[in-house]
């Protein structure tokens, strides 16, 4: 069982390492993730929201819907822990 797990891990790792051949080099400003929407964020976020911290601007404004449900996720987690663990006074 353990050797099977080790085999699965090694195969997955080898596949992923093979996949890294197509990735952009580290720190390349022209890599695909750095060329698309983030250019708009860096250039326009301060003009559009007056927030110098771009991470906060994206988190609170451009991706506000995402952040709202992030708060809902952590709220649900708290309620779930309460429901799983908390006992009534007589228990």
């Amino acid at each position: 069982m353990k050797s099977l797990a080790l085999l699965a891990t090694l195969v997955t790792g080898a596949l992923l390492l093979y996949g890294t051949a197509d990735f952009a080099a580290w720190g390349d400003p022209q890599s695909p993730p750095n060329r698309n929407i983030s250019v708009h964020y860096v250039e326009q976020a301060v003009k559009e929201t007056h927030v110098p911290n771009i991470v906060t601007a994206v988190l609170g404004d451009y991706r506000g819907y995402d952040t709202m449900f992030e708060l809902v996720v952590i709220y649900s987690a708290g309620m779930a822990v309460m429901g799983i663990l908390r006992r009534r006074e007589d228990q």
Partner: protein
Amino acid sequence: MRISVQEARDRIPHHDIILETTVRLMVPFIQLYGLYVIVHGHYSPGGGFQGGVILGASVILFALAFGLPASQEYLSEGTNILMANAGALIFTGIAVLCALLGGMFLDYSALVKILPIDPISWRSHGIFLVEVGVGMGVMMIMISIYWDMASAGHLDEGLHMASASQTDKVL
């Protein structure tokens, strides 16, 4: 089975004066720092999640040093639940308010109908209001998770192994 604060304090093996004094001195400063991280999130690394976790950690530190019932005198269970709900409601409430005032959902510039300032400034202030809601929610949920986990759901001192005796009954 709840126990009183006095009983809980007696149950702590020994009072450590260095620990208690240090925590009593540090907790207000940790909370001030947490508030700073939330409020200054527009200009420095920080924001609702980070500041909320720091604020929650201050109460968790208090609970570690003085015992869980003492921390519940400091911040009652009712306030905890109420503020967790209020935090989530501030965020969703502002989002719905924007939609009701004629903008898009979560488009803070629609809030200009409440207070006529520059719509772009409103987007900045809207982010701030939302971050306060996030901070409240995260702080209270962190404290609540700690309380439940440290005391196995009893919300008392948590030093006893209530679960072990129950396990014997089951098996």
